[in-house]
Structures are given as C-alpha cells and as structure tokens.
C-alpha cells in the first residue's frame, strides 16, 4: 500500500468510527414522544390502586404529611403553614431538584424541607428516608400531581446535569453495566420476569409493593445501584442528587403522579 492509500484508509476508518459512535449515541436516548411512565408497564389492578386515592396506600402518607405541615416545631415554634400561609405547593415538587444559591448546587425536595426545618423553624433536620420526611414530601408532591415535570437547566445547574448524565451513561461496577443499557436500550424487555421500565421518576415519593412502604427516588436509585454491583452512594450524596436532576430532566414535561404505586 502506498503512503497515500494508507492515509485514505486511515481517514476512512476514523470517519467510520466517528459516525458509528454518533449513531450509537443518538440511537441510545429515547425519543421524547416515545417516553412512557412506569405506570404504563403495570397491570390494570396496580394502576387502579394508584388512581384511586381511597385505595392508594401513599394517601396515608399524604394525610400524615398534611398533619406535619400544620404542626409547630423547633425553637422558632413555626409550622410549614405559618410561612407558606395560604400558599399552595402546586408546582413545587415538579421543579425539584432546584439550585440552592447558598450551597452553590442543586438540592432535592427532601433536602429543601430539611433546609426549611433547620434555617426557618430552628428544628432538627428530619432523618432521610424517615416516615415524617416522606410524609411531608408526599404531601408536597401530591399537590403537583398531573403537572409537567419542569426542572430548570441553566448555566448554574448545567454542570450538575452533565455530572448526572455521565453517571447514567457510564459503565461501572462488577458487571460493567451502565444505567442506559437497561433503561435506554432494553426497556421493551424483561428482567427476571419483570418489565424493564424507562426509569422516569414520575411519581416519587411512591409506594412500592416490594417495600410495602413509601420511599424516595434515592432509595430506589440505591436499590438499582447495588443491584448493578456498583459501590453505592449514601443517602443524600451529591452524586445521587445530580442523578436525580438528570433523570427529572430526562422526564421533562411528563406529568407527575405522586404518590405513585409501583410493583
């Protein structure tokens, strides 16, 4: 082969490598109009459980949250209702995680509730994944039911979105798996008899039949991450919040179903 021929061959090979990578990257993301909530992967009985407020176990947490909302706590002796008097929380849950200027990074709804507790109510923060915090986020989340998920992506939140995206697409752990391999590429398939969903966080906090309890998105992410045999992140870790931000952005404009029911 002459140097010229070798050069052409090399350029051709490089062009092919770039094209196929691009094609793979483009093919991976689910087109916006093909996105489906986990609701659509459930049977009619489980959907009925979610749709009927009188039958949805998450309703128990919503009502507990309503009671907590009105309860005066802390040395400031204030309830959530005192500051947010007459103000509905409609739309709030749909835009979290949101940027927190004091912390220079996004925080999720649970973290925001604790920020309010410590800074405004002068009370101790509620334990993450504890019953009261889940009740409050269920109560706040319920008020955004039906509203489109709408997290803000701007120059402040973009770096964290990209960090979350990188986690979603990165092969990691003992199985060298990326979240995207199941949830972008194989969501039409089944894993151990159960449908693989597209992993849109459309209903958190939600009542999971597996847990027989209400749990947060972080609890679910930790379950998945340990299932992938990846070193897990503790509850509240910034890596998990970044991933939450990415997942909520990926689910943008899909309606919120909180409190959802999932198998």
């Amino acid at each position: 082969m002459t140097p010229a021929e070798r050069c052409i061959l090399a350029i051709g090979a490089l062009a092919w490598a770039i094209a196929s990578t691009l094609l793979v990257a483009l093919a991976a993301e689910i087109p916006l109009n093909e996105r489906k909530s986990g609701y659509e992967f459930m049977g009619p009985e489980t959907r009925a459980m979610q749709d009927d407020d009188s039958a949805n176990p998450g309703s128990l947490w919503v009502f507990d949250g309503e009671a907590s909302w009105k309860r005066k706590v802390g040395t400031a002796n204030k309830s959530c209702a005192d500051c947010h008097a007459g103000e509905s929380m409609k739309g709030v849950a749909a835009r979290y995680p949101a940027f927190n200027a004091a912390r220079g990074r996004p925080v999720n709804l649970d973290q925001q509730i604790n920020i309010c507790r410590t800074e405004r109510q002068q009370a101790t923060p509620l334990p993450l994944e504890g019953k009261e915090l889940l009740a409050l986020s269920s109560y706040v989340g319920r008020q955004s039911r039906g509203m489109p998920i709408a997290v803000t992506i701007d120059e402040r939140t973009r770096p964290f979105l990209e960090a979350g995206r990188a986690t979603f697409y990165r092969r990691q752990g003992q199985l060298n798996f990326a979240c995207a391999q199941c949830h972008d590429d194989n969501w039409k398939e089944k894993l151990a008899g159960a449908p693989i969903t597209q992993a849109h966080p459309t209903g958190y906090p939600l009542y999971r039949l597996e847990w027989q309890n209400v749990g947060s998105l972080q609890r679910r992410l930790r379950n998945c991450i340990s299932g992938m045999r990846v070193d897990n992140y503790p509850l509240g870790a910034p890596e998990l919040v970044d991933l939450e931000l990415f997942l909520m952005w990926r689910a943008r404009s899909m309606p919120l179903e909180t409190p959802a029911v999932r198998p």
Partner: protein
Amino acid sequence: MARTLINVPPKAKKGEVIAIKTLISHEMETGYRHDNVGKAIPRDIISLFVCTYNGLEVFRAELFPAIAANPFISFYTVATASGTFEFKWTGDNGFSATESVNITVE
C-alpha cells in the same frame, strides 16, 4: 393512633347500596420473616375489622398474615338512615384503632 382513610359517600338515598372503602396504615408483620442476623421477627398484625352502622354490625372480617400491609378493605352496605358508621380495627400487641364517619340518608 394509626392513620386511617375512610371513603363513605356523605349523602345517600334510603335503600341505596353504597360502597365503603377503608385503608389503615399497619405493617402487618407476618411472623414468617427474619432479620439480618436470622432472628424471627414476631407476628404483629391487625386480626379483626368490624363496621357498625347506627350500632348494628354490618361487616366483620377476620384477617390473617396473608393480608397485605396497610390493609385495604372495601365492602357494601344498604343506606337505611342518617347516622354514624363506626370502624374498629384490633390486633396483636393490643392494637386498636377506631374511626367514625357520618352519613345523611334522605
């Protein structure tokens, strides 16, 4: 007291058959599970649910560990007169919860 959620139509016509839905928060620990060191977790369930309507018992259910956590029970009753529905759940470890809901029957 455990959180309960009752759905009874606030109004009904005399003779109308109405649906009543009840939900109560309770773990319904079966007694068949073990903790992370292998110790059996003792049974802790709601074992009885009774509904009375103006003092008359209209529904009774004996529950076993096979009933799922946060028990949901829905049933029907004939609306006879305005008054009160009383719901009572009892179970292991002296568990007891009661709730009452009024109805107007015309």
